[in-house]
């Protein structure tokens, strides 16, 4: 399998010499094409900082992150916008949809800024929207639809341009359990049938059980990693709970 993402000994420090916080303390891992990888940890364990570093929202103090062969820690400021729109898809906890645009336009925006020919735009949107079960609400504005629908729209926006990797930050955080399950099934489907590589940060063991590989962070370090392999979701779920118990006192924060 081709390696999509390679994280090499990255560190992220906050503060000054006397009062140093290591948000990320020497983390290395790799993500292969077609993987659905989860990152778990208590709050303050560094998982969002890690995601921000990979998504070029934040910079690292040392170390390198390669997306395919490109070192994203060394991308120039003027190239960053192009890099993001070509390579990355995002799903946020609070959707980040533009409320002046309809659902369809929110999705189309990504295609227009990537200069996809106008004739193909409608077709493409409809195709994906059907898979994500949002084709009925395409003409509505974000404030007119439910949270689950909004998040599916965000997922649609994230995948429509076929990015190299989709980065999801607590995508189920603002959803009820039914909408969350629906979204996760869709993400699982995106991963399987559309071959999307997904990196998801979550503290919810149910969400995590949809992944096929999970990294556990504690105090900025990788504490453990487990793989789903051929196991079914329920077995994987109990395995996750076991690791969380191992994480110790902090496990109370996790769930």
């Amino acid at each position, binding site marked *: 399998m081709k390696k999509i993402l390679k994280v090499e000994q990255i560190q992220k420090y906050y503060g000054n010499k006397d009062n140093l916080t290591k948000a990320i303390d020497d983390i290395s891992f790799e993500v292969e094409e077609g993987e659905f990888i989860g990152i778990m940890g208590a709050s303050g364990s560094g998982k969002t900082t890690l995601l*921000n570093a990979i*998504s*070029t*929202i*934040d910079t690292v103090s040392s170390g390198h992150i390669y997306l395919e062969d490109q070192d994203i820690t060394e991308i120039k400021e003027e190239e960053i*916008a*192009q*890099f*993001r*729109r*070509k390579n*990355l898809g*995002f799903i946020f906890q609070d959707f*980040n949809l*533009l409320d*002046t*645009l309809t659902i369809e*336009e929110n999705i*189309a*925006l*990504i295609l*227009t*800024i*990537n200069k996809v020919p106008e004739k193909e735009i409608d077709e493409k949107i409809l195709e994906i929207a059907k898979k994500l079960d949002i084709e009925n609400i395409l003409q509505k504005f974000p404030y007119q639809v439910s949270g689950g629908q909004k998040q599916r729209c965000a997922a649609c*926006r994230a995948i429509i341009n076929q990015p190299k990797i989709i980065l999801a930050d607590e995508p189920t955080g603002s959803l009820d359990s039914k909408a969350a399950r629906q979204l996760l099934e869709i993400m699982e489907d995106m991963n399987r049938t559309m071959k999307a590589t997904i990196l998801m940060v979550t503290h919810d063991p149910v969400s995590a059980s949809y992944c096929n590989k999970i990294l556990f962070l504690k105090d900025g370090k990788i504490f453990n990693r487990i793989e789903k392999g051929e196991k079914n979701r329920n077995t994987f779920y109990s395995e996750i709970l076991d690791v969380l118990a191992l994480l110790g006192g902090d496990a109370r924060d996790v769930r």
Partner: protein
Amino acid sequence: MLGKLSIRNAKRQAKDYMIYFITVILSAALMFSFNSIAASKDISELSSYMNEFGKAITGISILIIFVMAWLIHYTMKFMLEKRSKEFGTYQILGIEKKDIANMFTLENLVIGIVAFGIGILAGVFLYQVFTSIIMNLFQQPYQIKITFDPKAVGKTAIYFFGIFIIVLLNCRRKIQKTKVYDLLYATKQNENTMIQKSRGNVFLFILSFVLFGIALFLNHHEFSSETEMKPRNVFFAIVLAIVGIYLFYISISSFIVKRYLENKTKKYQKTNLFLYRNLTSKINTMSLTMGTIAMMFIIILIGGNVALLMNNMLNNEIEMGYPFEIMVSSPDGDFSQYKEYIEKNAQVKQMYEYQTYYDGNLYYMGLSDYNHLRKMLGHETVDLNDDEVIIHCLRTLKKKYEDQVKQKGETTIGDKKVKIKEVRTENFGQLSFNGDRFIFVVPDSLVDTVKAEQERICKGTDNFDYNSNDFGYRLVVTTEESTDETFYDELCEFIMTKEIPMTQEIAGEEQTFNVSISLGNVMTKGKRMSVTKSFYTMVSFLAFYVALIFVMATATLLAIQQLSDSEKYKYRYALLRKLGVDELTINKTILKQLFYYFALPMLIPFVMSIPAILSIAIPFKIAVSMAEVWQNIVSIYSLFMMVYGIYFVATDVQFIRNIESV
């Protein structure tokens, strides 16, 4: 697609920032109408002084541009902050910063262009209103005609879009500089609390009042002192007041915390806790803006009052100083040429020659002259016994002289003791033509005495002011119709060509020299009216223009602050509702919150400006009565409150609507 997004955003912005939008429209309308006035031939031809009006408008535009730039800059910066997450999302989606900046520019230009368009249309209407008011003031007929001066449109466009473009360039730079991380996580940053530093702040709070006190004292001292005013001290007072204002608004939040939140009974009354916290959380970040707003209010209140004082003074001066249409004084008492000229060029009703006398200290005139003048002005005549005199003074000085007469009802003329019969105050030219603020009217039997006194003074000393060329010879004329500017100019030209040889004994030597006649020797009511009307129009309109823009800009700023936070407040008030607070109490709390918020920057200006105005009015007292000063204060304040109040009510209505909308 990005264009479409911009247009939609612009629409949303216009709705969210309705009050700002309306203010920008009104400002454009005012700018346009004033630029039209500046360019209008009809108005500049009203009098020779109205030429200056156009120049003054152009000058004052600089001030207006600064204030508008301040408002627009503040609002755009505010929009950028409020929409940081949206801009972060654009960046995350991979839109180039340049394109984001373009979008923001387009958005605001669309708002600007729409506001400009509506503003110009409204301005055409406003211009008609202003022009008819001015024409009415000059008693000129005016036909309403829709004019559309391209020069005025151009000027307004340059001002208006100049501001927009400069502010937008600034915002673009800001957008280019920001990091996506800061944009996405900006809202999560906490505001600093100032409670830790509370003791230092209470000190600053008290210090600010000390500074206000010193500033007001200095101001009063300078304006009331008999000697010449020292501009340095007034400047110093202004600096102290400015420092005081900023200190006050920096420290007030701690004061509220200390006074109310640390006082448990006050704190837990009704919704006070909620209210004070809402207020203090905002003032912390707003203190500098509040200070600036307060300063602008002071400028409006004091500036407006000074403008009215000047107008009062000019108007009263006409009444007090120009009871006759034409008033001429001459060094030699030979009025024959003038009389001939005036009779030829004006429709004379009555003409009278007389003399007033000066003994180096006081002015006198004889009873029969006095009664003649009274008859000319339509007043009843008065009688005097041989040992009685009358003091005829300005009406503003009546009380002063009556008090003096009560204490000592006698004086001496020559070597004769006389009784002061009464103090009269009819407008009679006693400002400078007949006497100097007051004149003694003596019985005819005493005229020779005062005349001898004047001659003694003239001959015996070199202190006598030759420059004034005033030996008391006077000519007054009443006419059927008011004279105009041209009459005055031509009369002056006629009189000025005359030079009079005078012989005077100075320091024991006889000297002969030529005296030329100065402009001060000729006064016509028509000329003076024209000057006063021009000045009155200019000062009133400019003061109105500046004040209106200032109040609108500042009130809009406060409204924007409150309304754009309604997201936050919606949550807070929703919580109150969930906690069981009923609708009426919530609306009351909102009203209270906004009231405090709007009232706070008004507090210091209102308290500070009244004593300052009363001090400034002292030099005007000669022609302006105390009642008029208070009348000015009340009218300026109520006008201010009215405009400010409209914004306050609009904000309250919009606020409640925002909170209730889901």
